């Protein structure tokens, strides 16, 4: 928790829920507080504070517990979940590629509302999809798709302390007939009222993690080994809980069978053993052979993989932030653990002066730390002390997290600023769009529509295009920064 993090949290809340929620969020970010304290420090009317808190709680962004006095409740912000909102586009994209558009809409609705009952989700999705479709068929489809989401554990029941673990993914009882009545404007108590569902972030993270690993392996080796890794991960889940540091052994024959059935990578099947060998013998140690039984079984070293990936991430950051010479020195210090500057100069083949400059620059930016060992006996010749450089990974990770927050904050501030500067133009464009859209719906076309559209002059269109590109770039960057944060988080989780 840092001041910079608080600033980003505020901006995220501001962009999504507006001023009041952001103010309330800021107060409970700083300190868990009771309702009256929040109202007092934000100077927002009590009613509004209550509303804001209920929004936060509904999105699982805040939680509350009984104060020590036993009367009031204390509200805390769930900072992690606030940051997860940056990752929503990735979740939606993941669902879209894994399932189809209808499932994507179901997930989107839940993400928008924070939590919903099964019936509500289906109702909302139906409202969005009902164009040109038979409604009763559609809701049946949606119900099935929702059920598949539940079985795949992408959504989870909002838990209460009394709920048992196996109930978390129990299918809800959704009565389609009643749903139809509601859809046609009737009022009816829905069969699953009170059973709320929310997104199971862990499950999404698991998918994102696997994707990250497979992509990394594909980059380093080739497509074939990437595919091998994918199947290995898939088979890992059969025997292993998803988040253990190193998996239970996976029999390699099983993987081979699956690959044979799929028959997508003929190279991989012909040279299967060799590919497994390459992956196992590689110095990065992604998998480890643990037994000879049934053609050998292998453990997947999750913790180790993320250790590797995080090191490489940091090396890349050093490389980009300074230059390739700096990353060379950084890697040397990493491989030697503790090393003297003279040795570094000799091994990295950089002029002594330059090497020293880089070393102390890295030290200044906290990528390296120095240990000085002083010799106590003064009579042994000139009193020499040893200067040893080394790396503290945890410290660097914290620093980089901080850098991520800072960059995020800057990017988001800039985006808001650009929007603010061109507010008039953007508003105008929006108005023109709504008018022309309305006209088209009414069946008007031709000159009148063109007349309205021409209200935006060519230079204005040019500016709008430029702003559009700029905002897109900023949003994309936001997602990329989140990627970095994700891999660091994964490392910290296994650590």
């Amino acid at each position, binding site marked *: 928790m840092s001041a910079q993090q608080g600033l980003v949290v505020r901006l995220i809340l501001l962009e999504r829920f507006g001023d009041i929620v952001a103010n309330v969020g800021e107060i409970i970010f700083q300190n868990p507080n009771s309702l009256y304290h929040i109202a007092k420090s934000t100077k927002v009317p009590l009613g509004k504070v209550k509303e804001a808190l209920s929004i936060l709680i509904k999105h699982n962004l805040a939680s509350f517990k009984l104060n020590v006095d036993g009367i009031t409740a204390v509200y805390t912000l769930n900072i992690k979940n606030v940051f997860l909102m940056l990752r929503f586009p990735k979740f939606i994209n993941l669902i879209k590629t894994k399932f189809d558009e209808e499932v994507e809409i179901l997930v989107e609705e839940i993400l928008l509302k924070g939590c919903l009952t099964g019936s509500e989700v289906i109702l909302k999705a139906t409202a969005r999809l009902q164009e040109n479709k038979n409604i009763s068929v559609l809701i049946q489809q949606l119900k099935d798709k929702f059920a598949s989401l539940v079985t795949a554990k992408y959504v989870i029941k909002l838990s209460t302390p009394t709920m048992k673990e196996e109930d978390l993914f129990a299918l809800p009882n959704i009565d389609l007939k009643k749903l139809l009545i509601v859809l046609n404007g009737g009022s009816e108590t829905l069969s699953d009222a009170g059973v709320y569902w929310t997104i199971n972030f862990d499950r999404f993270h698991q998918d994102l993690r696997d994707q990250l690993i497979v992509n990394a392996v594909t980059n*380093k080796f080739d497509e074939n080994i990437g595919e091998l890794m994918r199947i290995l991960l898939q088979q890992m889940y059969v025997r292993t809980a998803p988040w253990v540091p190193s998996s239970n052994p996976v029999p390699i024959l099983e993987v081979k069978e699956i690959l044979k059935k799929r028959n997508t990578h003929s190279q991989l099947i012909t040279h299967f053993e060799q590919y497994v060998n390459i992956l196992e013998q590689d110095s990065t140690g992604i998998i480890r052979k643990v037994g000879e039984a049934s053609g050998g079984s292998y453990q997947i070293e999750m913790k180790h993989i993320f250790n590797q990936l995080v090191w490489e991430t940091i090396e890349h950051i050093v490389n980009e932030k300074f230059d390739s010479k700096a990353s060379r020195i950084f890697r040397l210090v990493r491989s030697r653990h503790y090393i003297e500057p003279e040795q570094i100069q000799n091994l990295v083949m950089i002029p002594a002066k330059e090497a020293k400059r880089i070393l102390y620059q890295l030290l200044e930016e906290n990528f390296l730390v120095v240990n000085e060992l002083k010799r106590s006996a003064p009579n042994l010749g000139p009193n020499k002390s040893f200067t040893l450089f080394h790396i503290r990974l945890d410290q660097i990770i914290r620093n980089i997290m901080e850098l991520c927050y800072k960059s995020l904050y800057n990017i988001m501030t800039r985006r808001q600023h650009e929007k603010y500067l061109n507010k008039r133009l953007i508003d105008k464009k929006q108005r023109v769009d709504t008018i022309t859209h309305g006209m088209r719906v009414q069946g008007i076309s031709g000159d009148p529509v063109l007349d309205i559209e021409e209200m935006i002059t060519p230079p204005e269109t040019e500016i709008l295009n430029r702003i559009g590109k700029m905002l897109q770039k900023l949003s994309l960057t936001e997602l990329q920064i989140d990627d970095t944060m994700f891999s660091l988080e994964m490392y910290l989780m296994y650590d």
Partner: protein
Amino acid sequence: MSKSESESRENNEIESENRILELAKSKPNGISNNDIKTEISNIPPEVWTKTVNKLLKTGVLELFKDKGVLLYKYKDPSKKTEVKGSDNEEKIVYKIIEEAGNKGIWIRDIRFKSNLNMTQLNKVLKSLETKKFIKAVKSVAASKKKVYMLYNLEPDSSVTGGAWYQDQDFESEFVDILNQQCFRFLEGKRESAIKLGGGPLMCRNRSYVTTTDVHKFISELGISKVQLSVDDIESILYTVVLDNKAERTVNSNGEYLYRAIKPFLDPPGVVRTTCGICPIVDRCGDSGLINPKSCKYLTSWLND
């Protein structure tokens, strides 16, 4: 003094000289006064002391002190380089420099060892230099430090820095070019291994190269004016490994094998923005001259 008396004394002196030399030759660790006394008891002490003094003066014997006992050591006159026309100071300084070998010795250390004062020592050194007995070599470790060594010696690589130094300047461009060429060679090897086909394991094994292979390639390229040794190439290859462009393993002969590799990841998202690599990000804030709203770096990046 009669003739025969002086004759016998001369004989005595010659005899004592021969015997002492023999004795000294037989004991390379040196002989003490007592050794001489017992070995050549027939020669009176005042005679052999004279001889010893003479031998010491001509440099055939050297005087050492070990645990309070004076020792004389024989010094091969054939090895002895004549420091013609020089005085005692020059001889001592010359000896000190000779002991330092091809690593050379710093002027301050000569001063400590010889107990000469600065002006005198400078004079001695200058005179030795003009007579081409010694030479001054600039060390790469510290640019202002001069070390002295015998004129006919080739300086040690720790003084000159080896192939990477020219006039004690590190040739970083040369090293960079070699680094690129080595990587190019490894990469080429990897690509040709993939083209050759065969199983993936064979591909991998074919892409390994030894240092000698790389050395041969670099020598044939002819980019180097100086002769590079295999060890030089080894250290260049290690920088390629440190750049995360290659990996190093050991084969069964204990030789290092190198292979070009690819990284796991692309540069992470945070350094693809300007803020991630901004040198003044620490000074950036909401207010003040450096702020995200008017940041020049961000603006130029957005307008790219």
